[in-house]
C-alpha cells in the first residue's frame, strides 16, 4: 500500500511536470526566442483544455457537444483554437512594443476566464465539464495512470523536437535577430510583424496542447480548477530559471521549479489545515522572491542560451 501510494504520487508528479514542460517550451518560443511577453498563458491553456473536453466527451445538454471524438482529434482541435485566439490578439499587437502585448494578454486571459464562467451553453459555467476520457482507454482497455504519463511524456518529446528544430532553423535565427535588433532585420528585408505573429501563434498552440493534456489527465475541468495567475507565474519562473532561449533549459527549469514548488507543500502540512491559505500565500511569496533573485543574480538561468554569455 505504501509503495502503491508513492508510485501513484510519482506518476501524478511527473505527468504534471511534463505538462508544465510543454508550457515552458511554448513560452520559450515567444519570450526566449522572440522576446515577447505573454502574461495570459493560463488563458491559452484553458482554451485548449475546454476545446479538447468539448470535442471528446459524450453528447450532453449541459454544454456544447460533446462530440465523442478521439483523444488525438481533441488535442489537435485544442492547438487550432488556441492558435486562432493568438492570431486574433497578435494581429493587433505585433506591430507595437512588447509592453502592449503583455497588457493585451492580461486582457485576453481575463475575458477568457469570464467567458468560461458565464457562458453556460458553451462550458457549463462554474459547474465545469466532467467525464473527460483518459487517452487511449478504449484502444488499450486500461485506465492506468501510467498510460497518461507515457502519453504526456511522448508529447513533451514531440514538442521539444518541434521547438528545437524551429530554433536551429533559419526561422529561429530570424526570431532571435528580431529580438536583438528589430531595425536591422527589417533593413535586411524580413517581414518582422509576420515572423513575430508566427512565433506567438506557435507558442500559444503549444500552450493549448498542454491544456488538452491536462484536461484528459485530470478528467474534470472547471473555471476554478486551475489557479490561473499562479499557473502563468510558475511557467515564467520555470523558463527564467532554466534559461530563456534554451529549450533544454526550459525542460530543466520546469522540472526543477516543479520539484521546488511541490516541496514547499511541506509548509502547508507543517502549519496545519487551519493555516492552509496562509501557507499557500507563503509558497507563492517564496517563488516570487526566487524570481527576483534569479533575475538579479543569474539572469541567463541555469543553462544559458547557446552562443551567448547572457542577454544584454
Amino acid at each position, binding site marked *: 500500500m505504501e509503495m502503491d501510494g508513492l508510485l501513484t504520487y510519482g506518476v501524478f508528479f511527473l505527468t504534471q511536470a511534463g505538462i508544465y514542460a510543454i508550457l515552458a517550451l511554448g513560452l520559450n518560443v515567444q519570450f526566449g526566442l522572440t522576446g515577447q511577453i505573454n502574461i495570459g498563458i493560463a488563458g491559452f491553456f484553458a482554451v485548449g483544455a475546454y476545446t479538447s473536453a468539448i470535442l471528446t466527451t459524450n453528447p450532453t445538454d449541459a454544454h456544447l457537444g460533446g462530440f465523442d471524438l478521439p483523444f488525438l482529434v481533441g488535442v489537435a482541435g485544442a492547438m487550432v483554437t488556441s492558435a486562432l485566439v493568438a492570431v486574433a490578439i497578435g494581429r493587433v499587437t505585433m506591430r507595437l512594443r512588447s509592453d502592449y502585448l503583455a497588457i493585451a494578454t492580461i486582457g485576453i486571459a481575463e475575458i477568457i476566464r469570464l467567458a468560461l464562467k458565464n457562458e453556460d451553453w458553451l462550458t457549463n459555467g462554474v459547474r465545469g465539464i466532467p467525464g473527460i476520457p483518459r487517452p487511449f482507454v478504449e484502444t488499450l482497455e486500461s485506465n492506468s495512470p501510467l498510460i497518461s504519463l507515457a502519453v504526456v511524456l511522448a508529447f513533451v518529446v514531440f514538442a521539444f523536437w518541434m521547438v528545437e528544430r524551429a530554433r536551429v532553423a533559419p526561422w529561429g535565427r530570424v526570431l532571435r535577430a528580431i529580438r536583438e535588433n528589430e531595425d536591422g532585420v527589417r533593413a535586411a528585408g524580413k517581414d518582422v510583424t509576420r515572423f513575430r505573429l508566427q512565433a506567438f501563434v506557435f507558442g500559444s498552440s503549444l500552450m493549448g496542447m498542454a491544456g488538452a493534456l491536462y484536461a484528459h489527465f485530470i478528467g474534470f475541468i472547471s473555471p476554478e480548477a486551475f489557479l490561473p495567475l499562479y499557473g502563468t507565474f510558475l511557467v515564467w519562473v520555470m523558463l527564467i530559471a532554466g534559461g530563456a532561449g534554451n529549450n533544454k533549459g526550459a525542460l530543466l527549469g520546469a522540472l526543477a521549479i516543479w520539484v521546488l514548488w511541490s516541496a514547499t507543500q511541506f509548509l502547508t502540512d507543517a502549519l496545519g489545515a487551519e493555516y492552509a491559505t496562509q501557507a499557500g500565500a507563503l509558497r507563492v511569496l517564496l517563488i516570487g522572491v526566487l524570481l527576483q533573485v534569479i*533575475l538579479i543574480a543569474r539572469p541567463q538561468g541555469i543553462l544559458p542560451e547557446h552562443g551567448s554569455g547572457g542577454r544584454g
Partner: protein
Amino acid sequence: MTEILQLAIYGVVLGSILTLGAIGVSLIFGILRFAHFAHGDLMTLGAYFALSLVVGLGFPVWASAPFAIVGAALVAIAIDQTVYRHLRKAAPIILLISSFGIAIALRSVVQLIWGPHNEVYASGIQMPWRVGDLVIKPDHVWIVLGAVVLVIALHLFLTRTKMGKAMRAMSDNMDLALVSGIPSERVIMVTWAVGGGLAAVAGIFLGMDTRLHPVMGWSLLLPVFAAAILGGIGRPYGAIAGGMVIGLAMEMSTMVINPTYKPAVAFALMVLMLIVRPQGLFKGNP
C-alpha cells in the same frame, strides 16, 4: 434618462479611481520605460494599510489615508531600491517580468497578513442622498472630490516645483535631462513616492466604493492600463482623460451587456485605440 445619469455618476466615480492609478502607471512608464505590472497590487496594499488603522485604531477612513499614502510610497521606494534598481541596465521587458513577480509577491503578503476574505471599512448601509430619482452615496462625492484635489496638487507639483519639472524633463527626453545634470536617482525615488501614494488613494477609494479583497487591485490593472494607453502612455495629463473615458464606458456598457464583462469593455477600447491611434489621445511614447 435617469438610468443614464445614474450610470454616468458611477462612471465618474470609477473614472476617478482609474485616473489615480493611471497617472502613476504613466509617470513610471515615462521615467523608467516599463509597464509597471505591480501597480494594481500596490493599490491593494494601500487599501489594506488604511484598513489596519480603521479597524485596529478606530481611525476614520480619511484620517488613515495619509498614513496609507506614506506606507505605500515607502514600500514602492523599497521595492525599487532592492529589486528594480539592479535591473535598470537590463532590457525593459526584464523589469516588466520582475514587476509581475512583485505583483504576485505583494498579493501573497496581503493574504498572509490580512487573510483571503472580503473586508469593508464600515459595515452597515450608508444613507444615500436622493436628488430627484438619482441616488448618490456620500462616499461617491468624497471619492470624486478627493481625486480632483489630488490631480490639482499633482499639477502644481509638476509645473511649479523644481522636482516636478525635472520629472517632466526626464519623461520628455531622458538623454537631454541627464546631460543637463538632473539627479536621476532622486527623480526616480520621487516618482515611486508619487506613484505609490496615488495608488494607495486609488486603493482606498476602491475599497470605499466596493470592498477590500487581495485581488481587488489586480482586477483593476487592465482598466488602469487601458486608461493610461488611451491617454497616451507616459503622459500623466492624458491619464485623466483616459481614466474618465474608460470609467464611463465601463459603467454605461452595463445597459447593453452583462455587467460581468465590464473589463472586456476596457479591453475593447484599448485594442481599438491601439489600432487607430497607438500613441494615445495625447501623443505618448508608443
